[in-house]
């Protein structure tokens, strides 16, 4: 029946699309705005606090928060947008931002930002980059992620391997991963040295390619660059770790460990963002973090933000902007820092104890210092389809079913086709 449910949804959307489009009214008196985001119960709790604080500071504006899980969030959002009744404020993942902005469903915030010139002066400029368009910003970041190296201290100490340092290179990573891999008497690997999810660029491969002096996509987003010689060296390097050293489990094996062999205590290292910390703090082993290793062109990591945008059809754009302004202010950013899922975008808060002294005792400063060599996760129209074309296309390599180079040679033209289609 799923087909019919789908058909039903499509049809109702079509009907809804023909419906309402009301003119925004100027807001005086008390207003209620809706805010929608993805997240889990812990995040909802913090956002309810932020919203309550905001209401205290702006008694005229009440914010109604609606939280869904990641997948339902986007489905729900698209349905509401196409019906012409989007939430006033809603969360946005930076790489997907242009998919929405280019389709004219977001409000241009530039006029508001021009009236509040000091509002963003303490925000990390790297996190603002993603939201800039030729005619201004249509969204603001709320928090960001840099990718760092996580390592299992217990495994390192048991194997007598020196802990990773800021001077580590990818070769150091590889040789440590090799020494940390354990094979049982029956020939089965009982412990892997390293695991990172090879599907999405953010976790390992964009960092690897950037560190080697390559790039993933041309600056005008018309050409996929992951098949250039410098990128190929990196793919080969990762491929060798997985299939020659066998220190990196294939994605089929990784699924056996719930998709995260590091958390499952089966891999000694992983590269992931700040969002993993709440989950990892429950782990039974001791772990710590280090910056991403260096490649031929020095160190490189990825920076990506989550932000908020305002629906163009919002009836209360002024109130919506007030809320956005509050989200990037110190009180809200402090609450976000305490949540511990991400790094606050406001420098003064990120560099304060609210962020640096969280209950998981690791050197949080590493996430901030990584900004110095961070590349922005690309943001362009068609991102989701492009990244899925690559992720899906390369997936057989990481299960061991397909050869590296021939697969790359078929994936790249397919990815370029997606780029051409979305021009």
């Amino acid at each position: 029946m799923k087909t019919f449910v789908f058909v039903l949804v499509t049809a109702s959307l079509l009907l809804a699309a023909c419906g309402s489009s009301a003119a925004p009214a100027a807001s005086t008196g008390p207003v209620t705005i809706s805010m929608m985001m993805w997240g889990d119960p812990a995040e909802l709790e913090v956002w309810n606090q932020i919203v309550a604080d905001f209401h205290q500071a702006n008694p005229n504006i009440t914010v109604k928060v609606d939280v869904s899980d990641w997948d339902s969030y986007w489905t729900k959002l698209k349905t509401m947008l196409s019906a012409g009744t989007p939430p006033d404020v809603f969360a946005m993942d930076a790489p997907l931002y242009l998919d929405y902005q280019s389709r004219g469903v977001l409000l241009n915030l530039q006029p508001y930002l021009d009236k509040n010139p000091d509002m963003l002066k303490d925000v990390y400029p790297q996190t603002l980059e993603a939201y800039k368009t030729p005619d201004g910003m249509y969204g603001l970041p709320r928090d960001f992620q840099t990718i760092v190296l996580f390592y299992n201290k217990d495994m390192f100490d048991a194997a007598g391997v020196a802990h990773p340092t800021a001077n580590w290179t990818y070769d150091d990573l590889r040789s440590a991963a090799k020494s940390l891999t354990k094979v049982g008497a029956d020939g089965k690997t009982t412990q892997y040295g390293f695991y990172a999810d090879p599907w999405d660029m953010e976790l390992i491969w964009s960092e690897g390619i950037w560190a080697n002096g390559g790039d993933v996509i041309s600056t005008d987003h018309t050409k996929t660059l992951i098949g250039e010689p410098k990128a190929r060296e990196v793919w080969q390097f990762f491929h060798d770790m997985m299939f020659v050293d066998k220190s990196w489990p294939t994605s089929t094996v990784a699924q056996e460990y719930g998709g995260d062999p590091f958390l499952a205590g089966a891999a000694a290292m992983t590269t992931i963002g700040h969002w993993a910390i709440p989950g990892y703090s429950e782990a039974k082993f001791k772990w710590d973090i280090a910056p991403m290793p260096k490649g031929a062109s020095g160190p490189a990591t990825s920076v990506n933000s989550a932000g908020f945008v305002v629906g163009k059809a919002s009836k209360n754009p002024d109130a919506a902007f007030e809320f956005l302004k509050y989200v990037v202010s110190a009180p809200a950013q402090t609450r976000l820092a305490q949540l511990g899922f991400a790094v606050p975008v406001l420098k003064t808060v990120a560099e304060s104890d609210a962020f640096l002294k969280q209950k998981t005792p690791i050197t949080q400063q590493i996430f901030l210092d990584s900004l110095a060599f961070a590349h922005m996760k690309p943001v362009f129209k068609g991102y989701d389809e492009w990244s899925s074309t690559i992720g899906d296309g390369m997936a057989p390599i990481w299960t061991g079913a397909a050869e590296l180079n021939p697969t790359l040679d078929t994936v790249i033209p397919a990815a370029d086709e997606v780029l051409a289609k979305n021009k």
Partner: protein
Amino acid sequence: MEYGLKPLGREKFWLWALMTPTIIGLLFGALGSIVATLLLSFTKWDLLTPPTWAGTINYINLFKDQKQLVPLVNTLKFAAMYVPGVVIISLLVAVMLNRNLRGVGILRTGYFLPAVTSAVATALVWHMIYGRDTGILNFLLERLGLPAVCWLCDDNAMMSVVIVNIWGAIGEGMIIFLAGLTAIPRTYYEAAEIDGANDIQQFFRITIPLITPSIFFQTLIATINAFQAYDYIYILTRQGQGDSTVPVVVFSIYRNAWNFFNYGGASAQAIELTVFVAGLMAFYFWLERRYVVYE
């Protein structure tokens, strides 16, 4: 063939009055959305901006775009293994359990259990069974001195998901066949026994011909289910961010629409699925006229 009484006079009015809500629902819900999907399949639509006419490009892409062709091939392969598998195995199970054995109720319940259990939960359990390094199945194989198999690796994944899907569908098939089997009068078997027919002969000469209506019905249902199968397959073969090593058409429709802003293409895929199912249905009904025996 006509059944029951014909409504007369005022009854006719009430008949229609009471059916109106359902008919409206069908017209707008089912028929309306089928027409809408058909129209959308000829457009380029991203949901957020108005649809534009796209001609037949979405239909060409069904076969040109690897992201859409691979799922189609997978779905057809899946159906080709799943439909006969479900029909034959659930028929055998039903025949086995169609006797007055002690504890037959427990066995029937056992076979039916997957049908009433959450597919996601059971698929996760199957995932543990199939694991290459940590799986129960490989543990048993190795105990028997056999080599371990990577059940969910690309070569075997299709077979492995077909097994799980058949396992999940045996219960419902069994119920349908049991109903058909209990309707066969015992006297036929008694007469056959007196005439000296053995069990095998009885099965092929009496049972099979008399339950052809159930076989027909079960094949129909299994085919529809095969083209809509999704949950077990996705849970068992998902990779990283929402990808699957055995993508099927339903999965591809969802991704195409909701992740790739390609509602026109997704609609074309929905139509494609409908055409395949409808074509097979027509073929089945043709077979029905020739081979199905109604008493």
